[in-house]
C-alpha cells in the first residue's frame, strides 16, 4: 500500500517538475547569456560604436591579452591585498568596538552613540581630507577601505550580541557558568551569524571603497588599469576592469558563504544542505 502511494507521489512530482527542474543552471544563465548574444549581434551589425561600446568578443580578446602580457596579475594581486588589508583592519576595529559596546553598559554608553553618529557620514566623502592627512600612497586607500568596512561589522555584531537569547543566558547562569564562560560559550556563538552577515556587507563596501580609492592617483591595481585605459580610449580594457571587479566580488561572497556553512554547521538549513 505505502509502496504504491510512494510510486504515485513520485510520478506526480516528476510530471510536474520534469520540464523545468533539470536545467536550473541553464534557466539562471539564460538572461545574462541572452543579453551578451544581443550585444554581440548589435555590434556585428554595426549598431554600436566600438569606441564607446566594444563587442563582447573584443572585451574577451583584450582580457586574454591582459592575461598573457602579464598586466593583469600584478594589478589584481595589489587590489586584492588592499582589500584584504583594509578589511582586516576594519573587522578588527569594528569587532572590538562591537564587543566592548555589546558586553558592557559602560562600553555601550561610551562607544555606541559616537559610532552611530559617525556611520551616517558617507565615508567616501572623507577622501579629500584623507589625502591631506596621508598623501596619495597606500595609506589613504587602506584607510578608506578599513573605515568603510568597520561600520557593517560593528552594527551587525553589536546588535547580535545584544540580541543573544536571554533564556539561554539564564540557563547558563543556573548551570554555573562564570561570566567569561558565558561570553565564550553562549554570547559569542549566538552572535556569530550576525557577524557573518556583517562580514558579507563589509566585503561589499570594501570593494566599492577600493574602486573609488584606486581612482585617485594610483600607479597600480585594477583601478589604475581602468583609469589608464580611459586616458588611452581603450574602452575594452575598461570593461575588463569592471569584469574583474564583478568576479572578485562574487568570489569573496562565495568565500563568506563557505565560511558560514563551515562555522554554522549546527543550523538546520546547513544540515539539510549537507544531507546530514
Amino acid at each position, binding site marked *: 500500500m505505502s509502496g504504491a502511494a510512494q510510486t504515485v507521489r513520485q510520478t506526480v512530482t516528476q510530471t510536474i517538475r520534469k520540464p523545468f527542474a533539470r536545467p536550473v543552471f541553464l534557466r539562471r544563465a539564460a538572461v545574462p547569456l541572452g543579453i551578451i548574444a544581443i550585444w554581440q549581434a548589435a555590434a556585428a551589425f554595426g549598431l554600436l560604436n566600438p569606441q564607446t561600446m566594444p563587442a563582447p568578443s573584443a572585451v574577451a580578446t583584450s582580457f586574454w591579452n591582459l592575461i598573457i602580457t602579464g598586466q593583469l596579475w600584478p594589478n589584481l594581486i595589489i587590489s586584492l591585498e588592499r582589500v584584504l588589508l583594509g578589511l582586516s583592519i576594519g573587522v578588527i576595529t569594528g569587532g572590538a568596538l562591537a564587543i566592548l559596546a555589546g558586553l558592557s553598559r559602560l562600553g555601550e554608553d561610551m562607544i555606541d552613540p559616537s559610532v552611530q553618529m559617525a556611520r551616517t557620514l558617507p565615508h567616501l566623502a572623507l577622501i579629500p581630507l584623507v589625502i591631506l592627512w596621508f598623501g596619495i600612497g597606500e595609506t589613504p586607500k587602506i584607510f578608506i577601505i578599513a573605515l568603510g568596512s568597520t561600520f557593517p561589522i560593528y552594527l551587525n555584531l553589536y546588535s547580535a550580541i545584544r540580541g543573544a537569547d536571554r533564556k*539561554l543566558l539564564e540557563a*547558563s547562569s*543556573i*548551570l*554555573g557558568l562564570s561570566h567569561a564562560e558565558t561570553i565564550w560559550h553562549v554570547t559569542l556563538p549566538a552572535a556569530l551569524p550576525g557577524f557573518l552577515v556583517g562580514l558579507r556587507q563589509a566585503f561589499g563596501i570594501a570593494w566599492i571603497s577600493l574602486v573609488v580609492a584606486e581612482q585617485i592617483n594610483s600607479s597600480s591595481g585594477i583601478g589604475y588599469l581602468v583609469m589608464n585605459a580611459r586616458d588611452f580610449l581603450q574602452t575594452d580594457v575598461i570593461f575588463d576592469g569592471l569584469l574583474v571587479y564583478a568576479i572578485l566580488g562574487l568570489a569573496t561572497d562565495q568565500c563568506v558563504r563557505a565560511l558560514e556553512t563551515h562555522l554554522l554547521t*549546527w543550523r538546520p538549513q546547513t544540515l539539510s544542505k549537507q544531507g546530514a
Partner: protein
Amino acid sequence: MNMLSEPQIHGQDFHGSTEPAVEINNLTRAFGDNIVLKTLNLTIRPGEFVALLGHSGSGKSTLLRTLAGLDPAPAGTVRVPQALSVVFQEPRLLPWKRVWRNVTLGLRDKNPRAKAEAALHEVGLGHRLNAWPLTLSGGEAQRAALARALVREPELLLLDEPFAALDALTRLKMQSLVTSLWRAHRPAVLLVTHDVDEALSLADRILVLEHGTISTDIEIPHPRRGSPHPELRTRLLQALGVTQ
C-alpha cells in the same frame, strides 16, 4: 509522614542531611505596586516531590525563579541547596553545541563525557549523543534538558511546566520518565504546573498558590499508585476556582 509511603526506597538518609531541602520564610516580592508573593512560607523535605498549582499570574513562576536564584528575594529568607537544577518549559539547549556538550556545560568533572553518556542513556537518548539540538524532536530535546539537570546530581530539581509544550503521548512518557528518575536519584522536586491530574499522578504533596500565598497544601495519600483521588481532584479544582 506521607513521605514514607514507599518504604522500599525510604528510610535512607538523603544526601546525608535531614535539613529541609527548601526553606522559605516570609518571602515577599512585588513588581511596582503589584504584590506577587506575600509573606510566603514553604518547607520542602529532602526527596519530597511537590507540585505547585496556580493560575497564570499567580506568582508560581516568580516563586520558582526566586528559588533558582534568577530573581532576587528582597524581603524574607530563601534557603536552597547548592546542587540545584532547573528544567524549563523550553529545553534551552545551546544549538551550537552537540547534545552531550550541552549536558556537560558548566560541569566541573574529570570525565564529563562519561557522565554525559550515562545521563543521556538514562533518559533514553543514548543514540543521540552527537546530534545537534535543533535536529531533536520536542520530547528528545526535553529529555536532553533532563539529562543536563540530572548530571549535576541535584538535591533540588525545579521543573517549570516542563511538559506543557509536548504532545499528549510524549507528555505521558515524559511524566513516567520523571517519576522513575526521581525514584532512582531522590532529589527534592518542585514541579510547577497548571494540570491538576499531572500533579495528582506525580507528586507526594500539592500546593495551590493564590494571590501570592499558598492557599492549599495537601499531602497525597498513597501517591503514584494510580488511584484517581476524585475527592482531592474536586477540592483542588475548587481551590483553583474551577467548579464542575
